[in-house]
């Protein structure tokens, strides 16, 4: 009897202790081990990043514990860590998510780090209420990849305008091959892919149903209706689009520089890269700025100082260049980017575009995710649901409120 009661008491105490011990976390007590989190799931990014972290950790004299979670669970995971006050010391966050994360109050403002010489748009994307919370080691954007062999066979030049794009896509559609591929998937990726067309047409995220926006969506709808792009674009992620292009199922695709390491491995595929076509030869090209930025989570002053030192190393010119080359990114430092474009002609289209790229959250801040959701839903309703671009975007504008 007494034994039983004692056993029960022990169990209860253990559970209670376990519950108390939770929030602090064991690694937090050891100031020589920093935690890091990112969402790179594929090579080369997920193999290169741990290497860089080890190098920079060694320079500062700390061990960096690396962790990766899938993209879809990344923000929920960070928020959960924020609630238990165990945000990782370093997190590599997608730039449109930064304002949300900074709004929690769990991030350290990066006051001591200089952003001189970086692309202004990426600096702006890292700001929340006037303070810098995130700095990107490299950025990316979107461009048009085209299959050189198919273009040569059809005697075509890579398109510069929307009309040329539609004409080339239709001319190159044959059998099981589509002329054009892009991602209209129902996530942020879908909005990201559409935004170059949306913004170049002159539309703004604060008014989704403007005539300019309708024009951009009509371009995509025409491609799908004319069967120059697969109906499956609404289910393809950017990685799927890349697979279709590599398999020869698409003559052109919209994609980013992070696909280059994979594409270059397929030596029998000859492809070229040009900026995304624009509505008229005089239009100003605007692409969305892509890329992740480093943030530092609140802990204690010593740890934060160490995390900042590691961050300085990661953002230094040579490390940023090393990372960009290995992972298919454009260095966020303008001078380094120009240098890279000269040595690597594959990147010149991307470097050209990054100069005029726009941060997705620049206009809307923390309200961006909701508007982006309304936008990709409109794209899907139009491409897969038979709605006209006007109807779909009108519904989106009322959903975005």
């Amino acid at each position, binding site marked *: 009897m007494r034994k039983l009661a004692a056993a029960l008491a022990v169990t209860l105490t253990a*559970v209670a202790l376990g519950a108390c011990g939770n929030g602090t976390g064991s690694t937090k007590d050891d100031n020589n081990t920093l935690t890091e989190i990112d969402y790179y799931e594929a090579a080369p990014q997920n193999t290169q990043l741990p290497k860089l972290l080890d190098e920079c950790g060694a320079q500062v004299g700390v061990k960096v514990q690396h962790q990766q979670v899938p993209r879809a669970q990344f923000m929920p995971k960070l928020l959960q860590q*924020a609630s238990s006050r165990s945000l990782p010391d370093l997190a590599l966050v997608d730039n449109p998510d930064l304002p949300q*994360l900074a709004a929690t109050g769990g991030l350290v403002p990066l006051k001591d780090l200089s952003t001189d010489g970086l692309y202004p748009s990426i600096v702006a994307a890292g700001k929340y209420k006037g303070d810098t919370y995130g700095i990107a080691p490299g950025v990316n954007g979107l461009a048009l990849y085209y299959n050189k062999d198919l273009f040569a066979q059809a005697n075509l030049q890579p398109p510069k305008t929307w009309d040329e794009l539609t004409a080339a896509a239709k001319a190159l559609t044959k059998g099981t091959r589509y002329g054009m591929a892009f991602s209209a998937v*129902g996530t942020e990726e879908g909005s990201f892919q559409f935004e170059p067309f949306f913004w170049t047409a002159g539309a703004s995220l604060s008014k989704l149903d403007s005539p300019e926006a309708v024009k951009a969506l009509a371009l995509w709808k025409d491609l799908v209706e004319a069967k120059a792009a697969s109906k499956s674009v609404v*289910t393809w992620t950017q990685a799927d689009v890349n697979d279709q292009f590599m398999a020869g199922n698409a003559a052109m695709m919209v994609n980013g520089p992070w696909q280059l390491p994979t594409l270059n491995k397929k030596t029998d595929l000859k492809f070229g890269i040009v900026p995304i076509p624009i509505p008229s030869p005089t239009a100003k090209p605007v692409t969305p700025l892509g890329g992740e930025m480093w943030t530092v989570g609140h802990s204690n002053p010593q740890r934060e100082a160490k995390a900042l030192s590691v961050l300085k190393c990661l953002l230094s010119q040579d490390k940023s260049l090393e990372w960009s080359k290995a992972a298919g990114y454009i260095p966020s430092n303008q001078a380094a980017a120009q240098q890279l474009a000269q040595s690597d002609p594959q990147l010149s289209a991307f470097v050209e575009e990054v100069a005029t790229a726009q941060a997705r959250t620049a206009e809307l801040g923390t309200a961006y*995710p909701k508007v982006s959701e309304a936008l990709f839903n409109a794209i899907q309703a139009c491409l897969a649901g038979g709605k006209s671009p006007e109807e779909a975007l009108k519904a989106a504008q009322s959903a975005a409120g």
Partner: protein
Amino acid sequence: MNLRRLAFVAPAWLYLIVFYLYPLATNVRMGFQDFTVSSFYTGVAPFAGLRNYREVFRDPAFAGTVTNTVLFTAGSLLFQFGIGLALAVFFRRNFPLNGVLRSLLLVPWLLPLVVSGTAWRWILETDSGVLNRSLLSLHLIDEPVPWLASTSVALTAVTLVNVWVGIPFNMVILYGGLQSIPDELYEAAQLDGAGAWRRFRHITLPLLRPVTSVVLTLGLIYTLKVFDVIMVLTQGGPADSSQTLTTFSYDLSFQQLAFGHGAAVGNLLIVVAVVFAIGYLRAERRSS
């Protein structure tokens, strides 16, 4: 004596409180709070009354989501149960390889849903999927059906896969129920001149009723909370056309980070499930 009893019951209580009651209560509370991203760090989430519910009801995706949930649940239950029952009756006969075939039919149930869901995604792919290829070569369709890429067929495709997943469960339970019906009843009915349909209608169905209600209630609760099938196949898309309340709640909470709204939808689901569970328990009590 009482203390000893308590010691045996306490672990079960503790388990229930920690793993069921606490998360449930938290979810219910969150549905009435303005829970934003900063609430996670500051721990402060002001009480919002019914605002989350009002906003969710007004969400343009809500009405479609409710319709989808009803269609998905009704379609899944009807076909899972119908096909499951037909198979169960079929396997009551003696024929060679009966046992082998019956165990093979269990495979969909044993496979992890992410695995079978991914396989179905390939099967249903518009341009290269085996389903469209077969239908095209049989000249049953003139051009590929965009199973997962059209707002008009995505829900049907998702329901189809869920029916496939659910058939084994229905078949196994109903087969078990059939085993408990004595053979003499059928023999007697046959002597009295009852045909196969009348024997099914007047012996099998009435005697199977208790099992049927268990299967349908459990099936209803399972189907209401189906998440992985839809997530793997369509993520609720295109344009919310295969969004059910479960995936909608996930989307609100973990994609849009509107945790109050997500919890509100979760609470609605709890209410629906509780209503059906109570109805089931009362029916059980009455019959016993």
